Structures are given as C-alpha cells and as structure tokens.
C-alpha cells in the first residue's frame, strides 16, 4: 500500500510539473504571437516602452540617415497605415536598404522611437520578411497593401 501511495505522489508531482510547464509555454507563446508588430499595430494597439518586440515594415525611402559616430543609423519604418522612427547601432545587414522590407528586434524608448538591437533582412532580395509575405509597398503613395 505504501509503495502505491508513493507512486501516486510521484505521478501527481509529474502531472503538476507538466501542466505547469504547459501553461507557462502557452502563455509565453501568446506573448510571442503578440511579439510581432507593424507600425499600424503600434498606432492602434500601443506598445509600452521597454517591451521587447519585433517591428516589421518597409524602410521609407529618403529616411535613412547615418549619425556622426558612423555606427548609428536612423530610419522610418512604415506599413502604409503608420510610420515609426527607428534607430539602430551596429553593422546593418548587406540587404538593409531604403525601400526594402525589414524586421527589427528591439523596444520603444520613452519618446516613441524604436531602438532596434538587431535587424533581420532576408539574405535574398527575392523575399520579403516572413511576416510581411504577400504584402507590397507602393513607393509613390507610401501605401502597403496585401496582394491577396
């Protein structure tokens, strides 16, 4: 009988651990799903400063400026609905260009500028960033639209 009790105890502990971990994972994944923002999302939903997110959109043509220190760049990211200013310090990927798609990882500072810690540009000009697939950007109207 004693052995049986112990086994029950172990099984319960295991169940609690697994369910606990599962719940943690689900909550984290929910955050993760909310982790990707376009400038339009930022405008409508709002993101508190300091929260780590991914910001995806197009680099507005003519907005890319390099600061005097040579390693900081400023640019605007747009999805047609809204435009967000962003900065990045570091070595930008080769394919990071004005008018191209970008996914930036980082957080907003208190003044509404997105401080990117990492820029992801797909190493292939043919492709848009994964989350922006099926969207295109009209240079003249700064409009972003879904193809389908």
């Amino acid at each position, binding site marked *: 009988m004693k052995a049986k009790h112990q086994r029950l105890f172990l099984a319960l502990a295991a169940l609690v651990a697994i369910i606990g971990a599962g719940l943690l994972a689900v909550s984290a994944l929910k955050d993760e799903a909310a982790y990707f923002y376009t400038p339009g999302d930022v405008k409508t939903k709002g993101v508190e400063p300091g929260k780590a997110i991914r910001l995806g959109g197009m680099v507005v*043509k003519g907005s890319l400026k390099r600061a005097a220190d040579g390693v900081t760049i400023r640019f605007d990211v747009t999805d047609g609905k809204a435009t967000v200013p962003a900065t990045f310090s570091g070595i930008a990927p*080769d394919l990071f*260009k004005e*008018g191209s798609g970008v996914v930036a990882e980082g957080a907003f500072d208190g003044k509404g500028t997105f401080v990117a810690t990492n820029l992801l540009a797909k190493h*292939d*000009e*043919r*492709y*848009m960033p994964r989350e922006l*697939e*099926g969207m*295109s*950007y*009209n*240079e*003249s109207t700064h409009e972003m639209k879904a*193809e389908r």
Partner: protein
Amino acid sequence: MRKLWIWLPLALFLAFIGLFASGLFQPDDRIIHSRLVGQPLPAFTLPAGASDRPALASASLANGKPRLLNIFASWCVPCAAEAPQLMALKQAGVEIDAIAIRDARPDVDGFLKRYGNPYARIGLDARSAVQMALGSSGVPETFVIDGQGRIAYQHIGDIRADDVPMILDRLRDAQ
C-alpha cells in the same frame, strides 16, 4: 486508465503528422506569382534607364517577335549572378528589354559596364510603379512576352545556367 495512457503518444503523434502534412501541402506562398500571366501587359512609358540605350514603352513590346522583359536593379546581387545567362540568351538571338527598379542612371551604367549589357532597351522605374503593375514582387524577375504584348511566362528569381534551355522553350512556345 493505463490503457488510455499507453495510446496517448500514438494519438499525439498522429496529430503532429496531420499538422506536418497540412504544412507540407500548403501552396508555397513565399513566391508570389503575377496574376497577369496570359494577360496583355499594362500600358506604361518609362524614361531611359541607361545613357546608351533607348527608353522603354509597353507599345514597343508588341512588335510581333517574342522577347524577354527582365526586371533588375544595380543594387541586387542575384541580378549580377544572372548576367552571364542573359548574355548567353542574347547570343542565342533573343531580344531582351529591361526595367531597372529603384535605381539611378549612373548606377545602371556602372552595373552594365561591369557585368555586360544584353539589353536592347532599358526603362527606369524609380518608384517600382510599373513593377507593381506587372505583378512582380522582387528582383530579379523575367517575363516572356509574346509578339502581341501578352505575358506568356513569369520567371521569379535569377536565371540559372540550367534554366536557359527552359527559357528558350518558353520563347518558342510563345511564337
């Protein structure tokens, strides 16, 4: 109770297999095909993209002979990679026109000087307007245009050496 537990892994696994299968057989939406294939080209007129080539207008693409319309840019690495294949196509007697995307004339001149110039006419599409109208989503892309100004085929990505015979076949079919 134990009976159920024993079959749980199999049930979970079958659910995963279903998921994998749905992921696998979903159409590959990473490549966006133009909806204009089989349709006439939209009308456009573009300024000249290079200093030693004439400008490009949609009307000149319907002169009776099938030809290629190559979308490229001087800042695009795969475009440089496909340059030898375009030269080979030109040597095979194919007429190639081009649209340079988000580009500037001096940059295009430099690019052509470096990688060769297989183009008969080059239009400059500084704002990607014509590219969007064509249903092209990136560079490089190449359209096969039949003699009547209709899009017969769209090739997405750079033309590799083993694509050349296929492109030639498409041109012949468009006759």
